[in-house]
């Protein structure tokens, strides 16, 4: 077997946090290799060490049997390692085409040949069956597409090794399949692919081999065949975890349960056609739809982040005019946004500050939460959601991606809202934590909170929703009762019904 990339005994400390302690990895040509572990296990750190973003404190990395020590991503690229980092790491101000080619432009007479840049960009995107206007700035596209662009960029580098850190976290089923098709093709061509995900099905669908990390140490390397799901989870978590299959207790929300939020004919030009929606106290409404179907837009309108052109919004029966998210927060609404990096965390603030931010905003700047109360809240949610952090005073930016997501979630849970809107809240969260979070959401709903839960995952929709609302092409396509068959939901989403 030819080892393309071989890493051994990697250690990395960040201050008091030991992110990696004797981790390693062995990547062979022509394989898709899944790297698994809980949030904060050290997957992204391992990748950063391999690609020169960070330097290891100890350990060796060999490429084709030759030791390498890249000191920058540029060097790693030159060595033939192409990487898509967790979170989109492209330049939002540059056009899609340029993001795909930055650093390796085709030139004519020494100058960049934009025509070929565009053409090349379209070609790259076509590999993923994407058809975008490549001249628009990247920022004008939703994260999912930015993620696809990042993947396409990595495909454009003629490399020996392709590393993908959670490429699928913001993609929906269709996009995931496109990506897998490409990965399989590259595998045929002999490329070594390292792939991080928290979706177990995806692991079994494409990977040839699995490496598991736990708390920064190497647990072992397995083939999917020798490691069934339960065993994989056990390897990652270190103990047995019961994976809930479906949920029996879809509550029958009484028809007279008070309606918390009602949207009548809500519409916004270019974003959403008229939508009616009701969410009752104690109810979890799951909102499904394809990428770009308008779910995020709807959530933003409900929260006053964007202004609707038409329609009315009623909160507990009374008309409200939300001009600013602050209005919504003051009235007991909460929106956990889709884009964690830009609209969610404030990376430089501490875990504590990020958690109390919305609650404090609701109280106003004058009535500060006492520090002891802040600490208490922060500790409570860190424990409840299993946030892996050195302490509550650690800047959130130093947390792993999944843990950042948990902090944003904690921020909104801490406000104890009347209506909680969650836009893809489980993105990048590991399987065990997902269980905990969904359990908490259901528990809060049973205590009387209304929940609007947006997800790209069929399973989450059917399991959580007391009612499932589906959007298609920016209008409401229909509603299904909780516990409906997955296939029926899928049909509605895709428009085959």
């Amino acid at each position, binding site marked *: 077997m030819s080892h393309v990339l071989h890493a051994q005994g990697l250690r990395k400390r960040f201050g008091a946090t030991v992110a990696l302690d004797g981790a390693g990895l062995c990547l062979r040509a022509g394989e898709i290799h899944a790297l698994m572990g809980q949030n904060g296990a050290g997957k992204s750190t391992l990748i950063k060490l391999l690609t020169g973003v960070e330097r290891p404190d100890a350990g060796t990395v060999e490429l084709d049997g030759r030791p390498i020590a890249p000191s920058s991503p540029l060097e790693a690229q030159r060595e033939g390692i192409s990487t898509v*980092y967790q979170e989109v790491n492209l330049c939002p*101000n*540059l056009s899609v085409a340029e993001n795909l080619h930055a*650093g390796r432009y085709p030139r004519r007479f020494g100058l960049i040949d934009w025509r070929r840049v565009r053409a090349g960009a379209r070609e790259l995107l076509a590999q993923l069956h994407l058809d975008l206007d490549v001249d628009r*700035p990247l920022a*004008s596209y939703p994260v999912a597409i930015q993620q696809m662009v990042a993947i396409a960029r990595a495909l454009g580098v003629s490399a020996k090794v392709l590393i993908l850190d959670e490429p699928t976290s913001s993609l929906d089923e269709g996009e995931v399949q496109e990506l897998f098709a490409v990965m399989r093709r590259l595998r045929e061509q002999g490329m070594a692919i390292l792939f991080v995900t928290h979706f177990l099905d995806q692991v079994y669908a494409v990977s040839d081999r699995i490496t598991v990390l736990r708390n920064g140490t190497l647990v072992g390397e397995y083939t999917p065949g020798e490691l069934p799901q339960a065993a994989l989870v056990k390897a990652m978590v270190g103990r047995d975890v019961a994976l809930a299959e479906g949920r029996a207790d879809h509550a029958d929300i009484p028809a007279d349960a008070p309606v918390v939020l009602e949207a009548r004919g809500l519409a916004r030009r270019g974003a959403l056609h008229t939508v009616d929606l009701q969410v009752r106290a104690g109810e979890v409404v799951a909102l499904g739809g394809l990428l770009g179907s308008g779910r995020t837009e709807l959530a933003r309108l409900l929260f006053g982040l964007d202004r609707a052109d038409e329609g009315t919004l009623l909160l507990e029966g009374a008309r409200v005019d939300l001009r600013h998210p602050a209005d919504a927060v003051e009235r007991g609404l909460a929106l956990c946004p889709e884009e964690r990096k830009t609209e969610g965390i404030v990376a430089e603030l501490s875990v504590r500050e990020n958690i109390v931010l919305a609650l404090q905003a609701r109280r106003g700047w004058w009535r500060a939460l006492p520090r002891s109360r802040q600490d208490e809240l922060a500790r409570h949610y860190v424990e409840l959601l299993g946030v892996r952090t050195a302490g509550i005073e650690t800047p959130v930016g130093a947390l792993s991606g999944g843990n950042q997501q948990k902090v944003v979630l904690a921020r909104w849970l801490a406000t104890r809202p009347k209506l909680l809107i969650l836009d893809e809240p489980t993105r990048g969260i590991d399987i065990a934590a997902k269980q905990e979070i969904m359990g908490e959401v259901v528990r809060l709903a049973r205590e009387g909170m209304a929940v609007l839960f947006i997800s790209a995952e069929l399973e989450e929709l059917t399991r959580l929703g007391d009612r499932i609302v589906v959007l298609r092409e920016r209008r409401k396509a229909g509603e299904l009762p909780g516990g409906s068959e997955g296939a029926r939901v899928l049909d509605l989403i895709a428009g085959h019904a």
Partner: protein
Amino acid sequence: MSAVSLRALLRGGGVARLWRDPRYASLAVTVSLFVAMSVAGGVLYDGFLRPQVFLNLLIDNSFLLIVAVGMTFVILTGGIDLSVGAVIAFSTVLLASLVQHHGWHPLPAIGAVLVLGTGFGALMGVLIERYRLQPFVVTLAGMFLARGAATLVSVDSIGIDHAFHVAVASLRIPLGGRTSISAGALIALLVVAVGALLAAKTRFGRTVYAIGGNVQSAHLMGLPVERTLVQVYALSGFCSALAGVVYTFYMLSGYSLHATGLELDAIAAVVIGGTLLAGGSGYVLGTVFGVLVLGLIQTLIAFDGTLSSWWTRIAIGVLLLAFCLLQRLLARTGPAGGGGHG
């Protein structure tokens, strides 16, 4: 399936898009406002719309234009360069002193000045990049240093009477119809052309935009962030020194108090031209119009000729305000992203 859904996301497009695109729209607005202001001047004052008046905009602002081009690159990375005015002053003094007091021919003296300016900029770039110092303070210190160095060379203004320099200074290239343009203005136009090309069509220029968009990402994308940052400040230093040279053609003198406050004019021109101070978005061409707008405001005031000193200041402020307000109102979308190309 997914390809269809994505395509649905992208409805619209076509030619109309070009107009709706905030990147081009803001440039178009700036240009239109410039034209509107000129017309207003023509209505108000006799002789305002003569071609030479507009050529004078170029001639009188050639040095500002040159530094503003350098400044555009600095600001595109999210930095700032406060030293430009002082570097101009230093360049003029040094050049004048070399020529007048040390018997140099202007050409080697110009070469020396350009090298020094570039090196000075690069030095500031190294401090900013290597030691993670804030550009504002480093270049502010650079400004003190360059001004100080200029006064050390000479506190008095030094007139230049070398035949070569005088010849270049009084050179007027006729453009027909009793209009002409100076050598300095030509140099400025050349700098603009090179700057625009550099920004749009070279790896250096595009890295500048990428850094302004997101440094971390630029780094992760494998772009040469460190080198480019140093180069950007070196470029700005070069442009300042070149502007200093053009200044000596304009004034035929070197003086330590030349170009005081010019840094602010340059920054203002760049920002009025539509470049975001936070970096990552803007055009060299926008900067040209930024400079022209500032020049036009001056010209309007000069043509009016009735304003007292303080009304002059108020008028500059009001015109600036009117321009920026209209610019904001007409460019409907906010200063969205857009390091456009091509």
